[in-house]
Every structure is written in structure tokens, then in C-alpha cells.
């Protein structure tokens, strides 16, 4: 049997005046998993996270982190949590090292060697003033402070949004290492490929409502692929329209643009019957996935 869940939300709801930012979110994170929290901007990802950290109070519902209530035992939650804010701001006049020492002191002391190790891996110069740092470097400092005390729970709000691909990979490595030593990671993102690549499971948040929680492998299956195939001969689009999973085929000259979901096996094998000049497959479109979920949900409601 799996151990008790690391993060639990029950009916988590947050209103800002008349606007409902979070609507009855129910969620369970297993200990030791990387959980992706997917949603477009304004979907309620940051609102959920700030509720967990006790920065805002839910209008209704409850949440616990490591069994500790986020309202009644916020101090305990924060003691065991590392947090990277989505809109990270540092103290511009402090150097990165001074900032990390300050935050470390507030945590009752943090091993300096761990800070140095993280800085080395992220190639972050701790002697620089935060105000003089590039956006990417500030983000690295934010990642260091979230990880430096080796917390049991990591809550990361869009951790790699401003990092270049190389740094993204290093951050992904650090997150996986944290998981491998038993930490539970809650990572928000609006980037489906990133979540598919990094996470074990993912939840999709849309307009404050959690519309799905799935294994990332399943989720990727639901994504739509847009495949453009350039043939060396004219090809009848109807050949592809009949294939399973294909929702749309448009033709221009010898190029067919095929929108398909799920397994691409049939599309590729059918294309192989003709002479192919080139093939391009666009990234899975998260908005499409969202729209799918939204449609499904509306259909269910009827």
C-alpha cells in the first residue's frame, strides 16, 4: 500500500470578491512523486499554491501538507517546504549570498556546502547583488533557496519559465534528485511538454476547476498532434480522414495537414504507402487539450 499522501486538498475554494479564482479543487499528491499542475495563466495555479503556504486563506475547503493543516499549522508546513514563487522578487541590494544566508537564518540555519553545491551546478555567481542580476540568474537564486534545506515538499511555481533549455535540464535533474531522496514535488506549469517530460502525474486546472488528474503518459496521448506531410504526388485527403483519431485533414498542393489525437501509428503507416518528401509534427497544443477537457466536462454536465 502507498504511504499517506503528502499534499491533500479538499474542496479548496477561493473567492476574490465576486470572482471565484479556485472552485472546489480536490487533489492528492503521493509521497515521492513529481506532480505537474497544468493550467494557462489565470487558471488558479498560483492561488492554489499560495493557499498551501498560508499566504492567503481559502474561502472554503481544507488543505494539508504532510498531514499538517495549512491554516492551523502553517509554520509546520513551511518548515518542511521549499517554495519558489511564480513572480519571484529578491532584495535588490543584497548579494545572492547575503539573501540566502538571511533566508537560511530564518530557517534556523542551512548548510553552506549545500548552497555552494547548488550554486555550482546552476552556474550562479552568489557574489552578485540581486538587483544587478539577469532574470535567469535571479530565478537560479530562487531555485537555490527552495532546495537548500532539502525540504520534504517542494512547491515550485513555474520554475523553468525564464530559463534557457540547458538550465531547464539542470533544474529538472535537481527536481528528480529531490524526488529520488523521497521528496514530493508540486510543480506548476503552462507547458505541457515540460510536464510530460518531468512529471509522474499531472492535474489540469481550468478556470479554477481541476478538470483532470492523470498519469502524464496518458495525458500526452490525449494531446493533439498536427502533422504536415509533403508528398511527391497528389494524395486524396479522404484516405486519411477515415483513419482512427484523425479529426481534420486539409490539403494544399501536395501537402496534407492532419490533426490527430492519440496513437499516430495508422497515420504514419498510411503515409508510407505514398512517396513522402517531408514530414513535420507540431508540438502538442495544450490549449487543445484544455478545450477537449472543457468540452467533455460540459458534455458531462448536460
Amino acid at each position, binding site marked *: 500500500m502507498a504511504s499517506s499522501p503528502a499534499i491533500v486538498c479538499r474542496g479548496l475554494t477561493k473567492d476574490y470578491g465576486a470572482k471565484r479564482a479556485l472552485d472546489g479543487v480536490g487533489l492528492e499528491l503521493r509521497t515521492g512523486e513529481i506532480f505537474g499542475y497544468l493550467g494557462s495563466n489565470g487558471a488558479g495555479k498560483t492561488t492554489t499554491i499560495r493557499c498551501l*503556504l498560508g499566504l*492567503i486563506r481559502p474561502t472554503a475547503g481544507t488543505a494539508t501538507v504532510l498531514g499538517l493543516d495549512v491554516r492551523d499549522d502553517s509554520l509546520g508546513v513551511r518548515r518542511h*517546504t521549499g517554495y519558489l514563487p511564480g513572480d519571484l522578487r529578491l*532584495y535588490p541590494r543584497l548579494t545572492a549570498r547575503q539573501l540566502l544566508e*538571511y533566508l537560511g537564518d530564518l*530557517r534556523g540555519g542551512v548548510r553552506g556546502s549545500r548552497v555552494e553545491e547548488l550554486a555550482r551546478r546552476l552556474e550562479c555567481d552568489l557574489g552578485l547583488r540581486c538587483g544587478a542580476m539577469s532574470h535567469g540568474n535571479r530565478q537560479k537564486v*530562487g531555485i537555490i533557496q527552495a532546495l537548500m534545506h532539502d525540504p520534504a515538499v517542494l512547491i515550485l511555481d513555474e520554475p523553468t519559465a525564464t530559463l534557457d533549455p540547458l538550465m531547464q535540464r539542470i533544474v529538472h535533474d535537481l527536481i528528480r534528485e529531490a524526488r529520488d531522496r523521497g521528496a514530493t514535488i508540486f510543480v506548476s506549469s503552462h507547458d505541457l511538454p515540460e510536464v510530460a517530460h518531468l512529471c509522474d502525474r499531472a492535474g489540469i486546472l481550468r478556470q479554477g476547476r481541476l478538470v483532470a488528474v492523470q498519469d502524464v503518459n496518458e495525458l500526452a496521448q490525449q494531446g493533439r498532434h498536427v502533422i504536415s506531410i509533403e508528398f511527391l504526388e497528389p494524395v486524396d485527403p479522404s484516405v486519411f480522414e477515415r483513419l482512427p483519431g484523425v479529426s481534420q485533414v486539409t490539403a494544399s498542393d501536395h501537402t496534407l495537414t492532419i490533426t490527430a489525437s492519440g496513437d499516430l501509428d495508422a497515420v504514419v503507416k498510411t503515409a508510407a504507402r505514398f512517396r513522402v518528401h517531408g514530414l513535420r509534427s507540431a508540438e502538442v497544443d495544450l490549449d487543445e487539450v484544455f478545450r477537449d477537457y472543457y468540452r467533455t466536462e460540459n458534455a458531462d454536465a448536460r
Partner: protein
Amino acid sequence: MRVDVFRRELADHRRSLIGCTAGAVLLGAMYIFFYPTIRSSGAGVEQLLDAMPKGFRDAFIGAGVDYLSPAGYLGTELFSIIVPALLLVMGVLAGGRALAGEEQNGTIDLLLSTPIRRSRLALEKAGGALLPLFVVGAAVWVMIAVVGPSQGLSVSLGRLAVAMLAVALLGAGFGMLAFLVASATGSAGVGGGIAAALAVAMYALNIIGSLVPGLTGFANAVSPFHWDGGSGALANGVPWAGLLLLIVCPIVLLGLSILAYERRDLTA
């Protein structure tokens, strides 16, 4: 006990504290060095003062106080406007900024993701905002004690200390009002603005109270600028009831600030 936030607050604003202290000490010294000249022009000054309405004279110099005496001169020149104004401005600016500044700079999420209670954070921030008032007050006290006698300005150092304490507490009171409004709204500007406006209103009320006999009782009871003994504090001493009010007010305001802050959703 560790007071990391308090220490950080002082370290972050050490330059402005040094500047304010130096400014207050130099300005105060300037008035002290004027004293021999003004005293030697004796009769002319008295005539000028006698031409003022009695209420004004009492408000700025103190009832029954001889302007040219050391206590009268220091009380008028330093304790009626300059030192209280400086400490008020310091208190209101620091009080508004200390806690709400973290929200407006967007650093509160980072700070409060560490295991520190909001009440503790508010206490340390308030301490960091208020300590400079007492540092400046103490520096001016030392300066007067050291430089004053050389210019013929010898006053009771005990009475001077109480008067200085009262003025620092006045600044602390309005500082904590700014702190309360800022911690309830998340805006340093709103906090500082409301506290500054109320300070000006209370100052005006104090003057009006000494000009309009029917309002004197009300103004004296309500305006903190009367509680500290005003310019007569050196000559007549600080009234104990006033001093008590000046001590209680910032403490109550700080308590309310913590209650307001603990219940609030912090601005992202």
C-alpha cells in the same frame, strides 16, 4: 532569541539612520550656537514675542515660560517643531514601509515561505522601524548635554531625557498608526499618508486649542502634541498622564496591526 528580521531591517536602513542622526545633531547644534547671540539681544526678542497673541506664544514657547532661559530656548527651538517633526517623518515613513514594503516589492512570498510567524515578523519589523527614533533622540540628548553648557545652555538632563523620550514616543505613535493602516491594507503609501494627515490635523488642533479657550480642554485631551508637554516640556516637565498615553498608544496600535496582519490575504 534570534531576531534576524529586526537585524536585517536595521542593516538595510543604516545609511538613512546615520543621515538622520547626523542631520538632527547638526541642526540642534546650530540652534545651540545661536543661543548666546539671541540672548544678548534680549529685550528686542521679548518685545517681538509679546506682540504675538498669547495663545500662539503659549503654544510655541510654553505657558509661563521665559523664552530666553535655557529650558525656554531649547524647548521652543527644538521641542516645539524641529525634533518632533523629524521624528514624526521618520516614524511615519518607516512605519508605513516596514511591513507593507515587503508586499509592494513582492518579496513577502519569499520571506513568509520560511517558518516565521506573521506576528513575529510584524513585531520585528515594528522594532526595526521604531528603534531609529530613539537612537536619534538619544544622540540629540547627548549632543545637548555635551555642547549646551559651553553656550550657556545648562538644563536638567533628566528632564531633557524624559522630554526627548516623549517626543520619540510621539513619533512612534504616528509611526505605529502608519504601520497599522499599512499592515491592514498592504500599502505603505496609504499607511504613511493617513498617519501624516492625522499628525498634521492633531498638530493644528493643538494650536487651535491654545487659541480658542472653549476648545482648550478638548484639544489638550485629544492631541498627542499636548501629551508630550510641547515646548514647555523642558521648563515644566512632561505630564505623567501624557507620557502614559504616549507609551500606551504605540503598543495598542502595534497589537491591532498584528491582529489585522494575521487575518489578511497577502498581496502577490
